[in-house]
Every structure is written in C-alpha cells, then in structure tokens.
C-alpha cells in the first residue's frame, strides 16, 4: 500500500513538474542534485575527488559548514574532468582542489561563464616519478632519469613484460608518462593500476618487502609519511614544454591548486560561498587530516572534528573574512 502511495507520489510530482514548467524551456544550467535542500535545510553539494588529500579538504569544509554555519552538506565523487561539467550544470556547487585543466577553464570560466574561480587552496601540487628512499640510498644514481635504463631489469614485474615497470595510477589523473617513456627512450612499460586505491596497495606491498619500484606519484600526499620516496629528476620543466601531449619530454610543473565555484552559487550562495572562497590551508595541515583518514582509518568526520578542535585560529579567519 505504502508502495502504491509512493508510486502515486512520483507520478504526482512528475505531473506537477510538467504542469509547472508547461511546455517552457528547461534550464540545463540549474540541475541541482535531487538530494539537495531536503527538509528545508540549506544544502551545499561538494565534489570529492578520489584522492585522500581532496577528501581532507572536503571533510574539514563540510564539518565547518555543518557545525558553524548550519548547512547540510552532500558530497558526490566525480572524476576531475567530468566534475567541471557537473559544476557548470549546478549538480555540484564547488570543487576544492583542481590540478590545472586549462581547456576546461577556457570553456567554462571564460566562454560560458557558468563557473567562477574560487581562489587558491594554499597548497602547491607537484607530480613526478618516485623511487622508494631505501632504494635511492643504495643506488644514489637512480634518481637521475639518464640512469633509469640500467635499473630496468630490477624493476621488472609480471605485468611489465620484459621491460621495467613504471607504476601509474588512476586514469583520471593528469599524466604524460607514456609520451615521456617514449620520448626519453626509456626501457620501461607504463602499467596503469586503474585506481589510486590499487596503486597505494601495490606501493605498500612493495615497501613491506623492501623491493625496488618506480611510480608516478604526487605531492602533497600522505603516503610519503608511510613510505618515504625520493623523486627521480626528469629534464627540467620549462613554460610550454608540455604543450604537445605527444612530444612531452620534460618534468611536470609545480601547480598552485585552485578552487572553483558554480557561478550561480558564487553569487547567491551566501555565507557558504564566502566561506569556501576563504578556505585556504597549508600542505602540512592538509596532510595531517589526510593521514588521519587514510592511515588511522578515522572517518572523514572524526578526522575533521579532531583537526577543527586543535586549529581554531586557522578556521576562524575563513568564517569572519568577507
């Protein structure tokens, strides 16, 4: 019985919608999540990316939004590029950590004006190739890309065929590794682990047995605290050397991470929008929370609560500045 009622309610609401909008145009830039604003609560929908650093941003932001500003926070996990599209359609209100997507920025921020920049996160990101420090200490010359080929045989695995393995992560991350291996004439095979979770598990297994490995990795990342890693020097980065994705032969840049808000939300989002624009912290602070989530296995809420309790002066500023 309750079921029929529910179904009736569905039809009634669908009908009401058709009646309300009539044959008018639907606005594809206002596609809020159906779970937003339930029971009259003010809701903010945040995009969480799959890496833990981004989860730390979102955990602290949602904790403060909920406990200090009285919002209900919904989170949706979306990959980096689709998140831009979702942000433009209003399905999410904010991205808190973007690693630089010039194409998307040109399309949505400059051209369509459906997304507004939300300022810097305060954290600088850097992608690179890393070997475990225990391996680098035994073989100091491995940290230069010119010597990588001599170590290829030691880095062979079942998945890399006859070549050395360069472990890559999630397909959603920014990577030039295939082109790099090609253009630098390295005797390596890029093996995509498919997700960051899979990659972390693999790195930890290697580290436990003190086996050598070469991996795509990025800073800031909490895993450095558990498995110390040393960066392999690639040919230095120069402005524009990564313009043609096929011909890249240089290192990754250092990127100041950015926040982006849905343009409508930035205008009408009230105190939540102001708060998210002010939200800015250091690499160490982000790592502290990320480590609590990923290593001590605290839930993101618990980790955020712990951090918020200890760092009141930092977050007070985010609430009061306008």
């Amino acid at each position, binding site marked *: 019985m309750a079921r029929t009622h529910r179904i009736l309610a569905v039809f009634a*609401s669908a009908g009401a919608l058709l009646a309300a909008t009539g044959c008018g145009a639907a606005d594809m830039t206002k596609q809020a999540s159906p779970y937003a604003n*339930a029971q009259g609560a003010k809701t903010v929908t945040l995009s969480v990316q799959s890496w833990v650093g981004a989860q730390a941003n979102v955990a602290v932001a949602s904790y403060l939004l909920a406990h200090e500003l009285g919002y209900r926070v919904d989170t949706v996990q979306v990959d980096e590029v689709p998140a831009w599209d979702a942000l433009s*359609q209003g399905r999410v209100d904010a991205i808190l950590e973007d690693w630089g997507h010039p194409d998307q920025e040109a399309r949505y921020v400059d051209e369509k004006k459906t997304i507004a920049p939300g300022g810097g996160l305060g954290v600088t990101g850097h992608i690179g190739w890393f070997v475990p420090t225990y391996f680098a200490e035994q073989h100091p010359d491995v940290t230069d890309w010119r010597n990588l080929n001599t170590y290829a045989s030691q880095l062979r695995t079942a998945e890399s065929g006859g070549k050395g393995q360069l472990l890559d992560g999630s397909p959603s991350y920014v990577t030039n590794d295939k082109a790099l291996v090609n253009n630098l004439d390295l005797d390596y095979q890029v093996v995509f682990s498919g*997700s960051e979770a899979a990659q972390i598990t693999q790195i930890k297994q290697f580290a436990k047995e003190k086996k050598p490995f070469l991996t795509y990795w990025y800073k800031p990342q909490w895993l450095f605290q558990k498995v110390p890693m040393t960066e392999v020097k690639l040919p230095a980065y120069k402005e524009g050397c990564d313009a043609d994705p096929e011909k890249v032969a240089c290192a990754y840049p250092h990127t100041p991470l950015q926040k982006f808000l849905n343009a409508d939300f930035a205008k009408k989002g009230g105190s939540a929008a102001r708060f998210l624009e002010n939200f800015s912290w250091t690499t160490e602070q982000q790592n502290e929370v990320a480590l609590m989530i990923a290593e001590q296995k605290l839930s993101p809420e618990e980790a955020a609560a712990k951090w918020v309790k200890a760092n009141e002066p930092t977050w007070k500023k985010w609430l009061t500045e306008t």
Partner: protein
Amino acid sequence: MTAATTAPHPPVERGGPPAALSSARGRALGKLLPLVLFAAVLVPLALIRWPGTAWPDALTVDLSAPLGSASDWIIDNRDSHPLFLYFFGHISNAVVLSVRGVYLLLLAAGWAGVTAAAGLIGWRVAGVRLALTAAVSFAVCGVLGMWVPTMQTLALMVVAVTASVVLGALLGLAAGLSDRLYRALRPVLDTMQVLPAFAYLLPVVLVFGIGVPAAVLATVVYAAPPMARLTALGLREADRGVMEAVSSLGATARQRLLTARLPLARKQLLLGLNQTIMMALSMAVIASVIGAGGLGDRVYQALASVDVGAALAAGLPIVLLAVVLDRTTAAAGSGTGSGPGKRGRLGWAVAAVATVLVAIAGRLTDRLDWPETWTVNIAEPVNRAVDWMTAHLYSGVPVIGGTADWAGRFTTWVLDPLRGGLQALPWWAVLLLVAALALLIGTWQTALTAVLAMAAIGVLGVWKPSLDTLSQVLAAVAVTLVIGFAAGIAAARSSRMEALLRPVLDVFQTLPQFVYLIPVVALFGVGRAPAVAAAVVYALPAVVRITTQGLRQVDPAAIEAARSLGATGGQQLRQVQLPLAGPALRLALNQGVVLVLAVVIIGGLVGGGALGYDVVFGLAQGDLATGLVAGAAIVCLGLMLDRVTQPTQRRTERRTERRTGRTRKAA
C-alpha cells in the same frame, strides 16, 4: 573417442546420449564443411590483399574524431539548443523531481516509518518471517550509519524501477500481442541481457552529463528488458484451452486480455518485476561512477582510499536491500501471501494505518534521522582483519608461496601466453575460429552474428585491447568452470554439501561487484590476475547452481539402470549424469562467460587494462570518444561470446534456469 569409451557399456549406449552425440558429430561435420570451403576461397584472397596478422588498418574506421566533436557540440549547446531545452531538459528535470519527491517522502516517514512499512509489507506478502527479515534489515542499515545513503539509493530505485516496469510492461504487452514485433524485439532483448552494465554508462553521460538523471536512465535501460521479455513470454504462453474457452464465451479482445491472458501471466509478470528490481539495484550501485550518489557512491569513495571496512559498511545495506526486495517479490510471485479477498484487503488497511501511526509517532518524538548514538562502526575491525590477511598471506608463505606469488605465476604462465597467442593469431584465423565454434554449438545465424560482431571490433580499431580482454575472459572462464563443475558435482552428489554451499551462494549472489575488487587487490596486487580472480568469484555461484540443478534433474531411472548394471559411482557420473546434463552444463558455460565478462571489464579499475580501462579512462578524462568506442567493442565482444556459447535452442524452460544466472548478475 566417445564411441571407444562407451563401447564396454552397450545398454547405456543404446538409449542414451552417446548415440545422440555421435549423430551430433555427423551433423557438426556437415555444418563445418561449407565453412571450410568458404575459408579456402576467402583466406588466400585476404592474405594477398592485407598481409600480416594484425587487423588491417585499411579496414578500420576511426570514430574518435566525429565522436569527440559530437561530445564537444553537446557540451557547448546544452544550455541553448532546443533539443535540450525542450526535450532532454524536461526528462532530466522530471527524473530529478521524481527522485526528490520519493526521497523527501522517505525522509518524512522517518526511519521508524520506513522500517515499519518494510516490515508490514513483508508481513502481508509472505508472513511473519519475511516481516522480521525486512524490519531487521532496514534497522541494520541504520545501525551501520548508512540510513541517509540507503534512502537515497531507495529513492533512486523506486523511480528507476517504476519507469522500467512501465516501459518493460508496455513493450512486453506489444510484443506479446503482435508476432511481428515479438520477432523484432526478441533478439534485441536477449542481447541486452548479456551486455555488461559498464557499456550502458557512456551514452547517457554523453547526453545528460554526470549526475542522477544519467544514472536513472542507464538503470532503466539496463533493467527494463527482463520485464519486457517475461511479459511477452507470459502473454504468449497463455493456456490455449483457456483462451479457446474465453473466446467461445464471446469475450472481446480487450476482455480476453484483461480477464484471461494477463491474470494467467501473473507468475511471469511478477518474475519480471523481481528480475527488474534486482538488475536495477545492481546498476544503481555501478552508476555511482557517473554520479548516482547513495550507497554505491559510499562504496566507490571507500574503495578510493583502500578502506575495505567502509566499503563493506556501505556494501552490506546493498546486500540487505537486495535480499529483502528479492524475497518480497519472489514471495508475491509464488503467491504464498493472502489473496485479494476481504481479509486480505483488511490486512493491507491495517498495515497502512500502522505505518502512518508509526511515522507520526516518529515525527512527534522528533526522531526522523537515525540516532547517531545507535550506530556501530564496523570499518575498523574489518580493516584490521584485512590487514592481517595481507600481512600473512601475501607472500613468503612456506611451501605454497603467497597469494602475490600465485598471481605472478598465473600472469606469467597463463595470461601472458594466452594473450600473446591470441594476438599472434592472424585476424582471419580468429574470425574462422569464432565461426567454427558458433556453428558447432548453434546455427549458421548465430555464427554469422558472432563473426560480424568480432569483425566490428576490428573495424572499430580496438582489435588488440579486445583480444587482451578476451584472453582474460577465457582464463577466468576456464578457472570458473573447473572449480564450478567440481563444486556442482560435489553438491549434486551430497545433500550435506549442498546444504553447506547454499547459504554461501545466496550471499555471494547478492554482493555488489564493486566490493569484490579491493580484497582481490589486497591479496593479488594490481594487474590482470586480480581482475580475473574477482571475475571467477563473481561467476562461480551461478555456475555451481546451474550445474547442481542440471545433475539433479537427470532422470533417476537412467541412474538406477546404470547402477543395476554395476556401474561405479564415477562411471555413473561420467557416462550417465554428465552427458544427460549436457544442456545444463552448456548453459552454465554460457552464463559463466557472460558474468565473467561483466567483471573483467570492471577489472579495469584494478589494473585489468584493455577495454575496461578504456571505459574508465573515457569516463574519468571526459574523453567520451575513447570510452564510447571501447563500450561498443564490449557490446560486440559480449554478443560474440554469448553466440559462441549459446545452446542451439533457446527453449522457454531456459527462462527459469536463466533466473539463477540473472539474479546473480543483479548483485
């Protein structure tokens, strides 16, 4: 060989399967002969025209440029083009509003109201036991701290299932009444049932972008076919005698439909509803990849931080929802509940009033959200157990070696040679092989479909990754069949074994595919081996079930006859039971292949590479062209594998057997 082994047992041979087999062999030769002639003419021609073993470049069509520009066009015009403003936009809004309506209703009923409603519906449909199961299941969702995500998934499900059922029933009604439509729809519906869920995600994302509307629509497209199929079947199978009687009484066509055909098809309709619900649930979880939110999203987020415990905390409610929905609709189908009589109606009224009362009580005491103090955190203990497992079983175990060593050996000794062998085969040899296999087990039509599907993969320009995926599927199917047949035979021979296996299979049949991925990574590392392992675990229950059923259904008289002739247990099994259960075993193979493919594709998330990785990559990078081409290749691969393993006659009994498989896929 068949003749040689059966020679000492003439009595069995006379009436039994070996005779049938040898005549089948003659038929097979007859079927293959035209193919051999055909190949003898065409292969040299192909060799002259396109030398080399890889698929010739001249025969590929590059779709990525047009697909890429289509995707760009959609993004650029989505806010302004009339097609979106007046059509897709309204669909999208309608979905969002309906999901929101149901979600608000569920929240308004509060946890007490929803739990009471679940219990009371269970009570009315199947009695006290199901009522308790339902109420306890919902309470457990709350205890695990997953109340709100559970309601989100439930809201999405209600909308998707309603739409699927309406759509499926309409299609099924049309196909049930019109022969021509039935012939046109059946192959389409059959095919849709064998495609991996992942292939459905990209086209909807292309149009609607990431979010709930895309998720709901993908779910509807995925879940509607079984409803349509079973509705059509139910209507077509109506008892001729009854229909004759009804029309001789002068009933109009409309009356015949409403008073005789539909009521007679009740069982099929409810089975269709059951399958649709189970498949919708499976898709609702997978659709978290395209922003469905709810429980699936929690699993997805937990997997991103290697948090098996949290994934399990979100996975358990999915399992519980699946069990409750499955049992409720299955009970409604078998009609154990009270009929539509006066007492039945009174019972429903009591249930409705009780639900409303509980909901109001919940409201008045201001206990709408699940109380935070009543939650239990299972993530930590589970993670400790997983850590222990990884620490002690991963490698360096004396004598047998660790799981990582097995995975490495499996990759080096099985997967690599298999992949290398497949990719070294000339492309025309692969096509011929596919044709020959499909001809042997099916008809020339299935063979033609299979070959065309395989050729389409080449034309799409993803020949190599597809063969990579195929090698993983073959390896996984081989392992699944060896273990599955062994377990199935054991279960068929010993009731105690079956009683032991049954609850295990029940649980495994409802677990979401996602949850399998992380423990296999923990055990086997990253790469193709864990993808294969997850696929094996996922496909096993269906194979074990179908094998057990097939063996048990063998005519007891035949076994008795063999026994009276002094055959040993092993002889009975080899020479009577297995040959007689042949059709069931082939069905097990077919189901195994379909289920394995579904998970091998998802294995792209744990380093399976190949086609699955391309889909994940397409979704993750917003590079829909790559993803769509890979998705199309997956469709073709699924089609080819199904046709190559499909038993000749799709008999109607297959439906019931299929259910075991489908419920499995519906996890």
